[in-house]
């Protein structure tokens, strides 16, 4: 399947026709709605909250936030940011309840610290991996976005971002940028290894009512397997024993890099001398 992210910028791709097509397609509507509900389930909000919708588009996800009945802790108040004027125009015509902003999330999040209870983003942050001008880099845009988002969420807040990574590399780039900004981060994958796989980046600020680490978010949910790929225990550095051949080679390598004159290594390097009488 072709990815619009590969060919155009978000604000250019979602022009008037594309924005209308996107919003009126019943297939997209259903998918977006189910993803928004899943994200809300992960946010676990209990009372009416103030939510940031990142890449809100025509307000498909925002509408669901406003429509949550009081019995389920709603309705929520939301603020949406999007870079595409056409999408926002469609949102205006649809008369959505949240406040809308025309803004580029790669330029940061212009809200003061601790503004929001939660943040939600449906199919948006993969756009950050593309930078079309020489002045910006994907890593820089991701860093600005996540730093801004981290600051604008209140302590104990959560964010759920559903996104479509192009490959594992993008997935890793996005996750590591989030972790670097200070979030507790985890990836939840629905229907893994199928064509309909949906990836949610779950982020927490502070403890966020989660027991232990980020895996506590999915505690008590049905049908979720936890795969922990974090490194455990001692890693890398501690394994080389001082005085061993590997250690000597490492030291020689370091010295060589510093520009010192280092004797060539051979099979005799680091061997014990025979006992001499």
């Amino acid at each position: 399947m072709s990815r619009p992210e590969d060919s155009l910028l978000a604000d250019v791709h979602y022009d008037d026709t594309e924005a209308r097509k996107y919003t009126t397609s019943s297939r997209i509507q259903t998918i977006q709605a189910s993803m928004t509900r899943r994200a809300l389930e992960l946010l676990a909000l209990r009372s009416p909250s103030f939510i940031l919708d990142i890449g809100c588009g025509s307000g498909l996800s925002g509408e669901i936030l406003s429509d949550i009945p009081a019995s389920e802790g709603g309705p929520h108040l939301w603020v949406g940011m999007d870079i595409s004027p056409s999408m926002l125009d469609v949102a205006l015509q649809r008369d959505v309840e949240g406040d809308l902003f025309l803004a580029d999330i790669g330029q940061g999040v212009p809200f003061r610290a601790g503004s929001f209870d939660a943040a939600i983003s449906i199919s948006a942050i993969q756009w950050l991996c593309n930078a079309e001008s020489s002045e910006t880099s994907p890593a820089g845009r991701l860093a600005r976005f996540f730093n801004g988002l981290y600051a604008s969420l209140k302590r104990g807040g959560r964010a759920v971002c559903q996104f479509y990574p192009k490959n594992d590399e993008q997935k890793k780039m996005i996750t590591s940028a989030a972790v670097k900004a200070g979030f507790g981060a985890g990836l939840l994958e629905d229907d893994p290894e199928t064509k309909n796989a949906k990836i949610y980046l779950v982020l927490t600020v502070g403890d966020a009512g989660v027991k232990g680490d980020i895996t506590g978010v999915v505690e008590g949910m049905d049908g979720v397997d936890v795969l922990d790929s974090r490194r455990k225990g001692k890693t890398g550095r501690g394994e080389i024993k001082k005085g061993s051949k590997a250690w000597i080679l490492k030291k020689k390598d370091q010295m060589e890099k510093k520009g010192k004159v280092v004797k060539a290594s051979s099979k005799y390097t680091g061997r014990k001398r025979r006992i001499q009488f």
Partner: protein
Amino acid sequence: MKVLTLNFLTCAVKACKSSSDSFPLHPKEAELAKDDVEINPQLLVNVLPRIDWAALRTTSTELGFPALPEQPPTAEELEADEKMLQELHSLLMETQIMEGKLVCGHCGHEYAIREGIANFLLPSHLV
């Protein structure tokens, strides 16, 4: 754009991040509209501790509303006082800025508001 949202907005310019003048943004030539929004007391109580009261007072004076009390009400006071709840609701949730500008007090950058949507796209030299 709701007055409540304005209370959370800061200037997006990088150099303004460290300055206290970049918050709140000052509305200029603002055209206001009033929307009917259903009152949600729980949401107001929830958001109340996060509202910067001093900034809200400045904004409401700049928009030409009567002066607010000096101290913010506490959650209990607000829950008990129907009238205050209604007043806050109509200021924060129902009052919308439809057209105008938001000006940063530090760098003077003007963010245009059209049809209730503020334009926060920055030219690349300000990012």
